[in-house]
């Protein structure tokens, strides 16, 4: 059964530990701005929202990418950008309805959560259990697909 990263946003305290752990694991630097999971706040003091790639059924980011850098990996089913090919136009960032398309402002390249090859570091460090890595039952997948269809593609 496929596993998915899920969020219980009401539990998130906005501590941003996941950003640090992610950047250390994936980029080997402690730099939240280069994390694949991002904890956004609308304004100081307001609620935090962790955002990350949902690996949509029909990803708009792949449709928008002008150099075909974003593809679904056949082996894992994940939607991942190829950093070598990415030109850093940022088109995927503006169009993602889930705010899940990250961007490395230092290297000017798209960043996407790849679930750490099935062992997501953010889940392990999350102090409140807001982030969980769970088996996705079919109804969950169906619901997600229906939502995606309602969003745009049918």
């Amino acid at each position, binding site marked *: 059964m496929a596993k998915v990263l899920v969020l219980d*946003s009401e539990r998130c305290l906005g501590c941003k530990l996941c950003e640090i752990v992610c950047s250390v694991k994936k980029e080997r630097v402690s730099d939240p701005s280069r994390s694949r999971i991002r904890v956004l706040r609308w304004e100081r003091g307001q*609620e935090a929202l962790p955002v990350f790639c949902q690996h949509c059924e029909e990803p708009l980011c792949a*449709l*928008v990418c002008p150099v075909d850098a974003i593809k679904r990996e056949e082996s894992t089913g994940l939607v991942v950008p190829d950093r070598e090919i990415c*030109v850093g*136009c940022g088109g995927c*960032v503006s169009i993602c309805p889930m705010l899940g398309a990250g961007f490395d402002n230092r290297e000017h390249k798209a960043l996407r959560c790849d679930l750490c090859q099935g062992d997501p570091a953010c889940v392990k460090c999350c102090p409140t259990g807001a982030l969980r890595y769970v088996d996705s039952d079919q109804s969950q997948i169906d619901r997600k697909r229906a939502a995606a269809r309602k969003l745009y*593609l049918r």
Partner: protein
Amino acid sequence: MKVIAVVGNGIAGSEAAEAARRVDRDARIVLLTKEPYPLYSACVLADYVADRIPLERVVLKRAADFGRDRIDLLLSKQVVEWSADARMLRFEDGELPYDRLVIATGSRPVVPNLPGFNKEGVVALKTLADAEQLRAARGGAAVVVGTGPVGIEAAIALSRRGWKVTLVELLDRVLPRLFDEPLALILKKRLEDHGIDVFLGERVLEVQGDARVEAVRTDRRILTAETVVLVIGMRPELSLVDRKQVAFGDSGGVRVDRHMQTSREGVWACGDCTESEDLVTGRIGLHMLWHNARLQGRIAGANAAGAHRQYPGSLNVTTVNIFDETAASVGFLASELTGNEMTVLHKKAPWGELRLILKDQCLVGVQALGSTDRLGGLVTMMMQGRNLRKVLLKKPAVSEGPAGWILRGLQRDLRRLMDAD
């Protein structure tokens, strides 16, 4: 054997041919293009001009990729005549009878009817050949006419090549179709900070010189230049097609139904040469963007091969980069709307700026500068045409995901804004 012919191998035609193959394993699929290259991305031509990416990154597909899908790709093959009744395409050295046709002939740059625009040294930026011409150009001064996204990209690319670049725009701000004054001003300043001169509200009158470009005369001044990049707009490339063969819309693009079928049976159209509905504004028109062309191509091609897929409409999210600063826009601009039912909420934050345009209590436009991700989160809400006053009576639910989060974040500002009108 059934023959599906696709005219034009831009992203729309290329996707159409592939989609047709996925639906029909047996048909003969012929893809004709007047280009000598299999498929390249217009969107990154400026990066190539600026030497930021090599040619291999611009070219997206090789002939072998089409061969694998058993698509007969005919390069440097301009279709010069279409006999719709006889179901026949003619090119210089032959003809092709077909059963189903997909028109994907794209767009071409508008050339104004003014003196001197045929001189050597006047270039558009549309094809790879144009990009090569700009890379090979010699000289030190360039004038770019038009400040749409392509004009801006061209100006930045030439400036990165070391040229002294001047942008001339007829309207009162840069990127006039994408941004209102406040953000357009910031973007203009960014161009100027990088050494590009920007002249607004100025009309280009002629290109001067003998055979070659020597200067551009506007209604205010004369600008010496060895190269003129002309990017004042794109029109559907339909010289092959006649209004008696298929119906055109008011926009000048081919009119298609939800299935991307034209008014003529057995003929589909997709990409820049067609008109479509904007999912956010509801406007029918030319929505010449890469992803729209790609999706339209997929649907037209699949349906030409016998499927019954529907195109949802165009999603006109446009992103521009100005010296590594990103800005994006979708929907109506405040400057396009009149009347007191329109209100604007302009937020500044550490991550950038966000400008929301509301009409009749619905969100109808968003412009973003800096981190543009919040714009994407708002598009769904715009498409649903949700009444924000109603939404704000109770707190937007957590189950609404990012859009709900944005609304909760904006709740106070929105209330203040709406109670004011």
